[in-house]
């Protein structure tokens, strides 16, 4: 059974790439401004977006870029689609925000709308809710993108038939440092859609590394 990366999205340096081609460039460099500009560009109407922390916004928009205009997920039962993500800073930005809210005994206002985003797998939940993805899910914390673990773990999920499609990759956001690479992994023999000229990439460690570094394949 061959596993393929059938679509990939990257957010980095004010740019959004879809399948290796720059799709959108934001004028301003801050994470906030990029996310706002991409939200408008994608023409989304999703009020919950504005409640999210930046990590979730990045995960949400990356998934949006990956899936909009396609019916990929309609091909699979929600329970067979997995979301396996990695990042480095976990939810550190909101961890600090929560710590600030309890630093001063005279201004002591811990808030559920902040605290909930101190849990990194909320970014999985935001994607899951938007796209009705109900299968395996996990968040791993690495200093740098680790395609080896994704390869080992996701291959095993396919092998023991826990999943038939997987959204995976790297979603990192801390301050104005943001970087995501999100891709869809499918089984070669299950891909029914007519893909035209789109090229697939074999799901392996070297290819994930290349996608991450932005080198052409």
């Amino acid at each position, binding site marked *: 059974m061959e596993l393929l990366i059938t679509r990939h999205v990257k957010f980095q340096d004010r740019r959004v790439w879809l399948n290796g081609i720059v799709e959108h460039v934001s004028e301003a460099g801050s994470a906030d401004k990029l996310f706002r500009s991409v939200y408008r560009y994608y023409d989304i109407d999703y009020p919950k977006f504005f409640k999210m922390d930046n990590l979730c916004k990045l995960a949400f928009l990356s998934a949006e870029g990956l899936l909009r205009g396609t019916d990929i997920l309609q091909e699979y039962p929600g329970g067979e689609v997995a979301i396996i993500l990695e990042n480095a800073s976990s939810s550190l930005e909101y961890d600090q925000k929560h710590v600030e809210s309890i630093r001063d005994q005279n201004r002591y206002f811990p808030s559920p709308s902040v605290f909930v985003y101190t*849990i990194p*797998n909320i970014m999985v939940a935001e994607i899951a809710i938007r796209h009705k993805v109900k299968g395996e899910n*996990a968040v*791993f914390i690495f200093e740098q993108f680790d395609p080896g673990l994704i390869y080992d773990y996701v291959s095993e999920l396919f092998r023991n038939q826990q999943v038939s499609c997987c959204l995976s990759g790297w979603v990192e956001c801390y301050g104005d440092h943001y970087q995501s690479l999100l891709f869809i992994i499918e089984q070669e023999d299950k891909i029914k859609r007519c893909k035209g000229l789109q090229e697939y990439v074999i799901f392996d460690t070297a290819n994930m590394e290349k996608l991450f570094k932005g080198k052409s394949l």
Partner: protein
Amino acid sequence: MLDVFVGTSNTITSIGFSTAEHVKRIKAGQIGISIYPGGDLWPTPVPLSLIDSQRLLDLFREHLSKGKPDLQLDSFTRSEMLHILSISDVLKNSGVDIRDSRTLIILSTLKGNMDLLKKDRLPAIEPDRVYLWKWGEFLGSFFNSSNKPLVVSNACASGLLATLIGSRLIKAGRYDHVIAAGGDILTEFAVSGFQSFQSLSPKPCKPFDADRDGLSLGEGCGAIVLSRDHSLCGIPEKIVLAGGSCTNDAHHISGPLRTGEMFYVAIRKALREASLDPLDIDYISAHGTGTESYDETEAKALSWAGLEKVPVNSFKGYFGHTLGAAGIIESAIAIASMRNNELFRSAGFENPGTSDRINILTDHISREVNHCLKTASGFGGCNVAAVFKKI
């Protein structure tokens, strides 16, 4: 099909520093949740289950003096001390070599060294150990492990998920042995956060009870050995992790899908992978936090799965919700129940309080336990089920 054996374990909470000590205290009915009078963790009285700090320091000092006398006590955080003690204990009692390139440490936590974000950090501790990967790397280097530990952070389901991931990576042939360890210390961070959600009960928690009104937070750490080689597991019984599954509700970021549908799907898939029918299950170690919504949902899922007659308990009535450690600690004690063929009363439970009735243990009982289901769920809509099987 390759078997993944579960072996010796360690458990640290308010009621003990080993799994055997937990079994002894639970048998004696000891509850580790007590009223914290108010202080650094929260300004007013609240029930918490806290690890004995003096005993922790004494044990850790002794541990360092035996193996690494050059290292200073104040160069370790509380979380690091707990994980080092837990992992050291399972290494001592098993044949697994942590320096072997075929051995992996998997760590599950919500917040790792989050106390380092406070300003009164000790000078001997680098601030970047607040990063979970750095915290993991520090623990790995303490043990001279060949592989950097893998850190999993999936809210309150992390511990059971880490165990399942360990078993999957062994089945994939990537590793031969895994130490699944995890824990969370109790900090103002966690207490204030759960208070802001109004999740904490003013009394020690009462999982599945009619009068339950919230969870009790517990500090905890645990470790459990997984290996493809039973002879290295450190226990005579052959118990395997026979199946497991993880699902997402795709419903709400901080509350369960109350129909229990996706929780049920996780249980069904775990049973299927283990090639077992619901009637084969002898015992369920439930997540059972004591909150209205999560217990209601879990009872519904168990009932859907045809498990309503199977004896079930939650250990959280003894030592609270230990967050990232919960799935590991509770699996460890459930496996002790399988080894000893004894099941424990679900502390805090008096009267049925879920719409779907399940068979909560109201007494300690002796019973042959060959197949055990362990469940967990948490924020982010994550549900996990795993089946342990004697072979």
